[in-house]
């Protein structure tokens, strides 16, 4: 049994103001195995974030079945940790309180909450900043808090929606490396949405290439280049060429169709 099973997912958004329906996801079938680092790769507007939101339970598919650990997804839940595009932290809480928020909701006592949150603060390298508010931290640091918050719930899958898109190039590289290190250390299943081929190839061991609207799965490629990955190596470039050609075929096809 795969960790995530998507069966015939269709999503139609009804645009009431213009009185027409928009087919966003067209018959998505996908299996993501436990401990996979799967990257959903596609251009903006291809429905990859919508697909992630359906797995998270934030949105309902128009038809089709979404199973996580064999259970049908009906609503959001702490078995699926989400890292948002913007950090989306509670601005009135300090870093440690944000990380421990899930435990507070469960009624865990403060000392134990902090004890367990500190482990994840350490994991994302924020020791010394645990009592800072989000407004006092940089974008990259806030995104680390968001990652620690998702990890603390010990979810069966972690869903990430372009979490590094707003970061500068250098911070982004650093965060990518750390995320891979965390994934290797903690053995978790990650679904990572991105529009960057490089990012997908640096991070993922499974690259799911999606087509432009309506979103379909063009191809799901396993990518087992050993880590740490050298983005200047011939192997990396070969893979990049293959993925780019998949995307280019798609745009040529679209151009011819229109």
């Amino acid at each position, binding site marked *: 049994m795969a960790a995530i099973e998507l069966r015939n997912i269709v999503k139609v958004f009804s645009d009431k103001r213009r009185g027409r329906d928009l087919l966003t996801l067209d018959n998505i079938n996908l299996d993501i195995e436990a401990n996979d680092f799967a990257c959903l790769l596609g251009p903006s507007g291809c429905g990859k974030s919508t697909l992630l939101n359906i797995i998270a339970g934030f949105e309902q598919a128009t038809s089709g079945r979404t199973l996580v650990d064999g259970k049908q997804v009906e609503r959001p839940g702490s078995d699926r940790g989400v890292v948002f595009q913007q950090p989306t932290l509670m601005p009135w*809480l300090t870093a440690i309180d944000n990380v421990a*928020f899930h435990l507070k909701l469960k009624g865990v006592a403060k000392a134990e909450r902090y004890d367990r949150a500190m482990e994840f603060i350490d994991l994302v390298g924020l020791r010394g900043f645990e009592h800072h508010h989000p407004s006092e931290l940089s974008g990259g640091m806030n995104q680390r808090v968001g990652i620690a918050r998702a990890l603390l719930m010990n979810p069966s899958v972690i869903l990430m929606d372009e979490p590094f898109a707003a970061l500068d190039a250098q911070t982004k590289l650093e965060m990518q490396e750390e995320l891979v290190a965390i994934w290797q250390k903690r053995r978790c299943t990650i679904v990572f949405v991105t529009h960057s081929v490089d990012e997908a190839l640096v991070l993922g061991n499974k690259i799911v290439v999606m087509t432009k609207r309506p979103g379909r799965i063009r191809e799901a490629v396993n990518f087992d280049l050993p880590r740490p990955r050298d983005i200047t190596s011939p192997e990396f470039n070969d893979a990049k060429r293959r993925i780019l050609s998949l995307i280019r075929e798609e745009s040529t096809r679209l151009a011819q169709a229109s």
Partner: protein
Amino acid sequence: MTSVTDAAPAKPAFRLTRLFQGLERVVVPALLIAGWEAFARSGVLPPALLPAPSAVLHALGDWVFGFDETTQTYSGHWLRDALASALRVFGGFALASLLGILAGVAIGWSRLFEKTLEPTLQMLRPIPPVSWIPLAIIWFGIADKPAIFLVFLGAFFPVLMNSIHGVKTVDHNLVRAGAMMGASQRQMLTDIVLPAALPSIFAGLRIAVGSAWMLTVTAEMVAVKSGLGYVLWDSYYFLRYDIVLAAMISIGLLGYLSDLGLKAIMARTLRWQTTTTVQGRAG
């Protein structure tokens, strides 16, 4: 905006800036008062119609401390008058805050309350609170109650509107994050929506405390026989403009102090927010 080079001058220059920062707040009031004093003493207007600041200060001093009975029956009774007004402000404001926040959060949170409660309240809102005075008098008589009722009306709607706004504009993604972490509906309200709406609620409370003073004084001019507003109106009948001005100053001062108190509570509660002016953030 202060640039980096401006921010690190030599020490003496820095002290001079500090001195000026202390003074800059008093420059305008000092000039205004000096001009007024000079104009009042020039004799263009009779002193009874435009008392000089010194005369107003004299009246205020006697009203507060009762040293030479220049304010006649009010001499030494300032505290009693101020307390009467302050209690009405406090009563009406507290009631308005409580009900305004409750109703506002309910309307912002639930479709049911929005549909049932909001249209009625929005229809009552444009009616100026002072136009309720005749009804307030026949319902509550001439005493504290009509004043508290008016203060309530004036303070309720700003709190209500800002609470509704605060709850409705909570970042949708924070709610999603809460759901992701397993928040129940009740926890969503108490642990996410309410704290997120607090800045907006406080903005409403600060507008409300201003309205509260405005309406207390109005009510005291018409429907109550005590308080700063009553002294103001009564002195007007006796052409004691020095006392009228002393009452105005007292009201301004107390209104300012209540806002300052509210601001202090807000600063403590919303410590996570950076609350300075846009220009102030640089320095």
